[in-house]
């Protein structure tokens, strides 16, 4: 390890990790309510970023319909995500009720391709580097820290904003699940569909709702990433780090997704402080190595629900 790089790596890792955690949360939301692992989450995220970009009037080709400030554009994109969530349930999932879970999961892979195709058609395949951001991407904080490289830690201001938004979003979701009426129905439905139906819960509507919320969460994640890197089709690949975060946290645990996200963020950054170039360049597989180790020790993940077995 290059010890002087470690303090910087820890800070950046946690900040990045919170965004990864938020993205992971979207997948967990759907998994919890319907046991469907949504492989299209990354594409929903990418779509959310493009839709926001579009509402913000950033296409600058002279035919923009909207020219919203960023905040409003994000809200509009949330609305679109909400509708798309319900639409996916109605058009793609409901007809598949009763089919094997695997077919439904494969359908989400198809959905991912469909979204990618539609985005390419509507917005073009070129990356959009002019994604609106509240402050310039280059602005940084400088925090003096004796043990850090050249005595300072540098933090992108945008990354701090992303962190705060991600944390706020996660708290909101956890509170919603724990204390709201709808959250209770969603937790109940997640446990037993037939039982939920037997007490009068509209199970398809709960599925639609969980897709809608997951879509909004994805959009939020997409906007945060796009602020940092611009909007592009390749945004969807962020799920490659979100998936290990999900499994690490335990697939059906909301706090697990958050902790998993931060663990993955840290692992990536810390590996890139290694002295050996071979290790430094393997930061992409670091989350998976970490995942492997955790799963050997705790197969249900860090926060996975233990099956309650009595009777």
């Amino acid at each position: 390890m290059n010890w002087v790089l470690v303090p910087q790596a820890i800070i950046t890792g946690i900040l990045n990790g919170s965004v990864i955690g938020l993205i992971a949360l979207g997948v967990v939301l759907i998994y919890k309510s319907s046991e469907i692992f949504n492989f299209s989450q990354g594409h929903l995220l990418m779509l959310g970023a493009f839709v926001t970009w579009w509402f913000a009037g950033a296409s600058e080709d002279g035919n923009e319909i909207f020219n919203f400030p960023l905040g409003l554009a994000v809200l509009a994109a949330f609305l679109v995500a909400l509708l798309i969530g319900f639409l996916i349930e109605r058009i793609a999932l409901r007809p598949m009720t009763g089919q094997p879970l695997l077919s439904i999961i494969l359908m989400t892979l198809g959905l991912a391709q469909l979204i990618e195709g539609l985005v390419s058609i509507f917005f073009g395949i070129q990356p959009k580097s002019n994604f609106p951001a509240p402050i310039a991407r280059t602005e940084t904080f400088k925090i003096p820290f004796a043990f850090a490289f050249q005595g300072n830690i540098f933090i992108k201001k945008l990354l701090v904003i992303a962190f705060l938004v991600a944390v706020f979003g996660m708290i909101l979701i956890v509170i919603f699940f724990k204390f709201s009426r709808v959250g209770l129905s969603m937790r109940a439905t997640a446990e037993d569909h037939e039982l939920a139906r037997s007490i009068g819960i509209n199970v398809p509507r709960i599925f639609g709702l969980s897709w809608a919320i997951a879509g909004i969460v994805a959009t939020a994640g997409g906007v945060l990433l796009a602020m940092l890197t611009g909007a592009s089709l390749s945004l969807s690949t962020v799920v490659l780090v979100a998936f290990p975060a999900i499994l690490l946290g335990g697939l059906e645990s909301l706090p697990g997704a958050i902790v998993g996200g931060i663990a993955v963020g840290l692992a990536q950054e810390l590996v890139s402080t290694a002295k050996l170039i071979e290790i430094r360049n393997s930061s992409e597989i670091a989350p998976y190595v970490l995942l492997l180790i955790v799963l050997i020790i705790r197969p249900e993940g860090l926060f996975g629900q233990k099956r309650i077995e009595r009777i």
Partner: protein
Amino acid sequence: MLKVNNIEVIYSDVILVLRGISLEVKEDQIVAILGANGAGKTTTLKAISGLLNAEEGAVTRGSIEMDGRRIDKLSAETIVRELGIVQVLEGRRLFQHLTVEENLVIGATARGHRGTMIDQDLERVYHYFPPLKQLRKRVSGYLSGGEQQMLVIGRGLMSRPSLLLLDEPSLGLAPLLVQEIFRVINQINEESGIPILLVEQNARLALEVADYAYVMETGRVVLNGPSEQLTENEDIKEFYLGLTQLGERKSYRDVKHYKRRKRWLG
């Protein structure tokens, strides 16, 4: 209030399970359905509550009416929310990871109830099942079998049902607990005036609390009548209440009974 008219139920388009069941539940009554494993008791309840639709089952003939309204084409959600028919599923099914109180509250919110109504209903449930009050913050999956049975019936009550369907509340419980559960079922019916359709294997207790009973065998009703009358019925005595008077019958009847017994217990 509830009328089931000669219904036929088919699973997966080919498996004929109910072959013409008719039954009726009147205001304030407890009605029992007795019958061996696989007779179609649960299927009958699911046909009424609309839960069949979700599992490849369908009512293919006959009709089900609640207060004169046909309900056999309605969704389970509508049947609970609009008509107040609530089925308590077999096997003490609860939301294991939710607390006792969350399990109860959701029974009310799922029917659209809010606020003080829920508090009143919680009090009512704790009145019928006092042990639940102390346990209300506990994760329900760790409750004992008896406590779980109280909880699922309590959850049914939280919906303020106009008709409660109970599927084998005695399943796997110790005899004393079973008696206690039945005492409360009777109390609920008398104090709150909720009609109950009760599926049971424990014929003795079921006939004690019920006003009327049906005996099912392979998808048909083979016997029905007021409980006192069924309690006196020789077949019921022999096969369900275990009161056989050995050596009193002639061979032909013995053989016939033996066969039927095999079917009933099968």
